[in-house]
């Protein structure tokens, strides 16, 4: 039988070209170089993920990615200057900023002075350059092996943050990884590694933004190790510009008796894919995994989650809400896996989409794979329009229609956003929601 030969798309050809050109000057020791090669080989073999790959069925990257931009060059003074005003998405939350412009760490915009005891951080570029042993121990250990988006990140990663929190350290001030794109049509591959040792506590905010018009591409990955009895909050805000392509991955391994809260907020970008691969390695951990998506026009936002319960007695709650206007398209794929050893798992997943327009589309795909017999698991999915009865009730009290709708939409998203423990951040996101609704009227 003749082998089926897949014709490479322009983007695939360009990515191969980018890698061939960059290969010689990409940083890292032999082990890293070998990781890059293996990752690129996977991409060369598989190509960009497309709709016949089940996990990418609703986000056909091969079709959506018409070209691949060249690797971003280091930011110039003008780009850095513009980045000074970035970060408004988190309101006036006081955080330690680590700023990346076009994928490169910018020390002069970052706040690396007076680090709390137990906190150490550096850039991935630096860690790669001197073969930091933390990379050998952790990098690439959590990212799923077969995922082509992650493979491209591994092959081309240039910079990112490498953060270590020592055992028992309570880091009060949130860490804000602020990724800013400048106007150039370029691609960035940022990779971060965060190791939180047992009993430590930290809040990570990861935000991505860029100019409203600017055809840029972001591939971001974060590997996160949460030690036993640690308490970690991760809040990711996608506020990319309207033409941007954003693919990002959070891969986390969570130890025993830990608290883990993850929140993904998506409002920007033309095409967004948020991937979360979470592994519950230790028993009796409590996790809250939430997200809110707010899109309009022709925006496409996909959240794909795998919560893998390996150890017994963990509790996870997944709540994902999407509000869609115009011709926007949201995707939620959530898979909860309960391994044979994960007895007494308590996992509940809910995904709801609110469609404000007849032309919007929401695809919700919750899945449960249960291999243990003493568990409580459930999932639910809904998609629908605003409730006319509720709207009438509000209007009958004198609230004009647009304001009544806004109130109901805020309430709908509020259920997810309330899960964020940090009050200031919660308010900042509700402000963003209010501004989005204001622009709609």
């Amino acid at each position, binding site marked *: 039988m003749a082998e089926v030969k897949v014709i490479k798309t322009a983007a695939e050809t360009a990515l191969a070209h980018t890698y061939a050109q960059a290969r010689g000057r990409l940083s890292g020791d032999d082990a890293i170089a070998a990781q890059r090669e293996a990752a690129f080989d996977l991409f060369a073999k598989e190509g960009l993920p497309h709709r016949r790959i089940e996990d990418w069925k609703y986000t056909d990257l091969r079709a959506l990615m018409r070209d691949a931009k060249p690797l971003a060059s280091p930011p110039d003074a003008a780009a850095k200057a513009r980045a000074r005003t970035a970060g408004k998405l988190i309101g006036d939350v006081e955080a330690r900023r680590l700023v990346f412009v076009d994928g490169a760490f910018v020390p002069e915009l970052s706040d690396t002075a007076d680090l709390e005891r137990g906190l150490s951080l550096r850039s991935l570029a630096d860690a790669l350059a001197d073969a930091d042993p933390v990379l050998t121990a952790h990098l690439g250990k959590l990212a799923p092996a077969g995922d082509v988006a992650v493979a491209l990140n591994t092959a081309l990663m240039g910079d990112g943050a490498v953060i270590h929190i020592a055992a028992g350290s309570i880091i009060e001030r949130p860490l804000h990884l602020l990724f800013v794109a400048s106007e150039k049509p370029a691609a960035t591959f940022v990779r971060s590694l965060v190791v939180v040792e047992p009993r430590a506590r930290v809040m990570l905010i990861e935000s991505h933004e860029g100019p409203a018009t600017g055809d840029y591409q972001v591939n971001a990955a974060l590997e996160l190790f949460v030690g036993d009895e640690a308490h970690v909050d991760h809040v990711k805000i996608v506020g990319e510009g309207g033409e941007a392509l954003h693919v990002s991955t959070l891969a986390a391994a969570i130890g025993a008796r830990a608290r883990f809260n993850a929140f993904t907020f998506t409002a920007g970008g033309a095409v967004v894919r948020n991937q979360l691969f979470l592994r519950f390695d230790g028993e009796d951990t409590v996790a809250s995994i939430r997200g809110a998506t707010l899109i309009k026009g022709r925006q496409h936002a996909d959240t794909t989650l795998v919560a893998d319960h390996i150890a017994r007695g963990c509790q996870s709650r997944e709540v994902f809400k999407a509000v869609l206007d115009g011709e926007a398209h949201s995707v939620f794929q959530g898979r909860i896996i309960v391994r044979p050893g994960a007895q007494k798992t308590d996992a509940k997943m809910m995904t709801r989409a609110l469609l404000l327009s007849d032309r919007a589309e929401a695809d919700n795909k919750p899945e449960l794979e249960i291999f243990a017999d003493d568990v409580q698991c459930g999932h639910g999915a809904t998609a629908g329009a605003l409730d006319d009865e509720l709207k*009438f*009730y509000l209007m009958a009290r004198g*609230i004009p*229609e647009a304001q009544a709708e806004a109130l109901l939409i*805020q309430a709908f998203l509020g259920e997810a956003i309330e899960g964020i423990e940090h009050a200031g951040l919660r308010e900042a996101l509700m402000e963003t929601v209010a501004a989005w609704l204001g622009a709609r009227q």
Partner: protein
Amino acid sequence: MALLEINNLHVAIDGKEILKGLDLTVNAGEVHAIMGPNGSGKSTLAYVLAGKAGYQPTAGEVRFEGRNIFDMKPDERAAAGLFLAFQYPLEIPGVVTMTFLRTALNAQRKKRGEAELTTPEFLKRVREVAKKLGIDQEMLRRAVNVGFSGGEKKRNEILQMALLEPRLAVLDETDSGLDIDALKVVAEGVNHLRSPQRGFVVITHYQRLLNYIVPDVVHVLSRGRIVKTGGKELALELEARGYAEYREEAAA
């Protein structure tokens, strides 16, 4: 000028005529009770007045302080001073009662060209009113009607009425599902608001509520029309004899 003037109102829902030529005039300072058997059109009348979608007239007119209400959206009617206490108040998950009350009050004030209340002003007002109605502050911090008992929901309707100070309040079976203590609280709330400037239309199936909210005029609604009008003694008569004769009368 009458507060509310309904002339020959016909309303059909999904092609079926429910109100068939209803006439009613309510003047400021008056409390009118509308009683009638199930299916006579009581709740339809309430929804038509408030402006629910699908409750459109096929004939007749309704004037509120001289204005044709069918030219006004539900929120405009509310801002003009028309209030409906719902028979089944809705639960609104995620909208805190306090936020809801403030949004409603300020939206109405804005539409009337009055200054919006500041947060302290609003809080003072709402606390005073809540206290009179025996409503716990904690309830105001919860989502609107979510997890409220039947009695709490009805009290919340009265709280909204007291806060919004309408010119005309329509109470749609506010007594249903209430025990006698809750009924007294609700009635006191209404009586407290009675004034020469304000009118009430109290829709009820039973006479019981009218022991506490004593009406000036009682109407019997049957098969979409007012078939009898009298004083408060008419309610007692109905209680004793039932609605049977009105069913026949309307059928004849």
